[in-house]
């Protein structure tokens, strides 16, 4: 996995250099955006609702025992927007979209479609990687905003209706508003942007280097997903550390 990091960075750099060309490919970006939204929006909401809910459940009971249930909104709010929203959405999108990217580009590699592009003097990085990387970099942060909102709401439902916590909506959202400011949300969005670039680059890179028929495509998909998730979780720590530094 790590031996490819150099190649992945090169692919990112070449895509970055091609960024001005994105206007030419805007239709492909829209197509990709539509596909990502279509494939993930509903599922992302369901996931986030339950993530917010379980956060409230776990912390709520413990806080209530100590008479601190007025802090629950703050805790759910911060955990969601700084950590769980970005990370869980990134993991989910690796599985849902990264895999599709690796499969699609991988099958194009195996069936010589990428060779055909090259013979038409069409750069596969511009044609295939650029629109995907741009689309996922737009889509993931937006998805995280949704995830935060739904997750906060999920936390609220549990905080109100779970008998161990049982606080009012007003108390929950007051606590949330006092503890979470715009910078915290921005913090999570920066993370999710980095994660998006990683998922896109890892998956496209894996797709492009696919060899060996249908089995090779399967291998590429698995590798793309696993490598993306591993990299996300490792990078999350260092990003958190870095952002903490910049924050306060």
């Amino acid at each position: 996995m790590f031996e490819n990091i150099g190649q992945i960075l090169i692919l990112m750099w070449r895509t970055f250099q091609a960024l001005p060309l994105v206007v030419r490919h805007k239709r492909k970006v829209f197509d990709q955006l539509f596909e990502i939204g279509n494939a993930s929006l509903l599922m992302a909401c369901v996931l986030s609702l339950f993530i917010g809910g379980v956060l409230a459940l776990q912390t709520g009971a413990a806080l209530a025992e100590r008479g601190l249930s007025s802090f629950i909104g703050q805790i759910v709010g911060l955990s969601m927007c700084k950590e769980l929203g970005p990370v869980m959405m990134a993991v989910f999108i690796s599985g849902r979209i990264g895999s599709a990217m690796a499969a699609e580009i991988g099958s194009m590699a195996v069936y010589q479609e990428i060779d055909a592009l090259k013979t038409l003097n069409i750069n596969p990085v511009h044609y295939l990687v650029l629109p995907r990387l741009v689309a996922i970099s737009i889509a993931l942060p937006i998805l995280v905003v949704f995830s935060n909102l739904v997750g906060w709401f999920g936390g609220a439902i549990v905080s109100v209706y779970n008998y161990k916590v049982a606080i009012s909506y007003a108390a929950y959202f007051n606590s949330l508003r006092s503890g979470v400011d715009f910078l915290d949300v921005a913090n999570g969005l920066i993370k999710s942007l980095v994660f998006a670039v990683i998922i896109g680059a890892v998956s496209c890179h894996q797709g492009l280097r696919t060899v060996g028929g249908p089995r090779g495509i399967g291998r590429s998909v698995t590798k793309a997903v696993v490598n993306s998730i591993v990299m996300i979780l490792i990078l999350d720590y260092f990003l958190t550390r870095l952002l903490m530094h910049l924050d306060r």
Partner: protein
Amino acid sequence: MNSTQRRGVGIQVRGLRKSYDGQLVLRDISFEVAPGEIFVIMGPSGSGKSVLLKHLIGLEKPDAGEILIDNESISSPGLMDRHRIAMVFQSSALLNSLTVGENVGLYLSEHRLKPPAEIEKIVAEKLELVGLAGAQNKLPSELSGGMKKRAALARALVVEPELLLYDEPTSELDPLMAVTVAEEILKLNRRMSVTSVVVTHDRDLAFGIADRIALIHNGSIYSIGTPEEVRNTTHPLFQRFLAADFNLKQSDKS
């Protein structure tokens, strides 16, 4: 460069060698193709014909040797911007996510060479030429192997290449369509002196269109010559290769 009086490019291949995981697939291949020539590479399956063709368009990097297109190395940057080279793949290699029409017009639309309406017209023209009139909105998955091959040919024709590489252009076609494609290769060559390199094991095609034929076996070129010279080859394998015939029923009777 003048488009009406275009001249094909010349190719020089010198000492080309390539191996995959220790298996030598091309060993010391050298030949030259003159501008505007139809050069046919013939040989049994697995002899390295497709690999050789991929080297000629820069899809594969040789382990040793060099390939010059009009005296310029195929690997020199920007060569594909200066020369129009197209290839018809053995497997057609149409983009499965695009319609046939989008595939055929891809070169023009991606490089923004023509306005959309004109591209549509050109696509219709080329599709008609290969006997696929009206197939614009079909997906490649809805076509037979032979139809895909012809769509791939149409896609290559749209490029208006100076060098056109064909990998088994008639392998999945019925005899009538094979003749049409052969005629098209000849016509392109005559009208615009497109340099053509045709890989095939179709003897009729080879002898029908070739200016010169190279016989390749196990990654080496055994001989190069005019169709007449090649017909009189003394190599036992190629004698059999060129004379092979379905005589199964007769040998049954005897």
